[in-house]
């Protein structure tokens, strides 16, 4: 992150970005998801919004850039540039607290920390049901409706739910 000096124009751009929804999970903004990396000025003083893709092939990436462009233009920031950065790669750790709260409210279990890494047949993370809170849950499928989610079910309330995978 660049040095964040108080800059009213950049603050306003950040506020605009909090209103841009993620196309796949519209309850969350692109800021909540950590897709917006930073809002800075380049050497010429032009505002730059740096964004990062979640998964390499996420089909929403192009749409997200489009939506940000549209929101910036509508709010009078037509001169602001959008840049895509790959490194460091996006991680679910960048989902904000607000984002995790909204995920849960939308019936999607937020990523559980302490994820297994690498090992085969390792233990699944402990995932709490976003509806009833029970941790008596089981993975149905490692992959779900979008690249970032897996399918789970709750053994207590019997409801299926989506889990936002740790990456």
């Amino acid at each position, binding site marked *: 992150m660049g040095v964040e000096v108080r800059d009213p124009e950049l603050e306003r751009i950040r506020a605009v970005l909090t209103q841009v929804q993620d196309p796949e999970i519209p309850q969350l903004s692109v800021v909540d998801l950590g897709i917006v990396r930073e809002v800075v000025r380049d050497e010429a003083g032009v505002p730059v919004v740096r964004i990062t893709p979640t998964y390499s*092939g996420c089909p929403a990436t192009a749409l997200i850039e489009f939506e940000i462009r549209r929101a910036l233009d509508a709010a009078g920031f037509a001169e602001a540039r959008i840049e895509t950065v*790959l490194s460091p790669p996006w991680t679910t750790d960048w989902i904000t607290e607000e984002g995790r709260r909204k995920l849960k409210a939308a019936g999607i279990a937020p990523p559980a920390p302490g994820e297994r890494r690498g090992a*085969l047949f390792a233990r699944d993370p402990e995932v709490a049901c976003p509806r009833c809170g029970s941790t008596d849950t089981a993975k*149905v*499928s490692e*992959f779900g409706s979008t690249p970032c989610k897996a399918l789970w079910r709750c053994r207590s309330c019997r409801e299926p739910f989506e889990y936002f995978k740790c990456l």
Partner: protein
Amino acid sequence: METREVLFEYVLRLGDNALILGQRLCELLGWAPELEEEMALANIALDYIGQARMFLSYAGEIEGKGRDEDQLAYTRDVLDFRCALMVQQPNGDFAHTMARLFLMSAFNEQLYGWLVRSKDQRLAEIAEKALKEVRYHVRHSGEWVIRLGDGTEESHRRMQRAIEDLWLYTGELFTPDEVDQAMAAEGIGPDLAALKPAWQQKVEAVLREATLERPADGWMPTGGKDGRMHSEHLGHILSELQFLQRAYPGLRW
């Protein structure tokens, strides 16, 4: 060849491997044995297509002739492709599909794991992103190798046959040619042979747990990554992949 041309060749290989493996997995849409697995294969295919886009875009920039990712993917002819024989192999039965994904993803895990430290910064950035995804693919496909290998008599027989059929194409992955050597000398790419022990260890551990036998290393064909002698399959893959741009050249969304 100049360094720039060698780098172009090298990045094309990375892009083509991801593109063709992704395309192969896409063929299973509507055909996977169960719904959850269909989503899994589609998701994995998407990761690979995404990686292909990043590599091919970069290749186009290196080449500097104005070709973008789409032109490289859709308008090159068979002999201009630079993908390993492994990714060209047909999906076969589900055991073949998973065995190919496992052997190739385990290779990519080592390759990308090295490229993260490449002196070429762009390659390092793409690899860092792709590595996270590939680890997931290794786990998913490896679990299937174990489940089928250590499953019923029939599933064991099929997975053993798939591993034996595909083992033939593992040699090319670790056999460096002039392009690989030049990149290794520049610190841009790895010494391929040095990646093999870690790959072998991972693969053998899974095969053991799957109660499968590791095939012997015999003569193994090459010719995919340098475009010298592709398998017959590649042309058929491209006939589907490139159909639209062949029928309607230059068509855009």
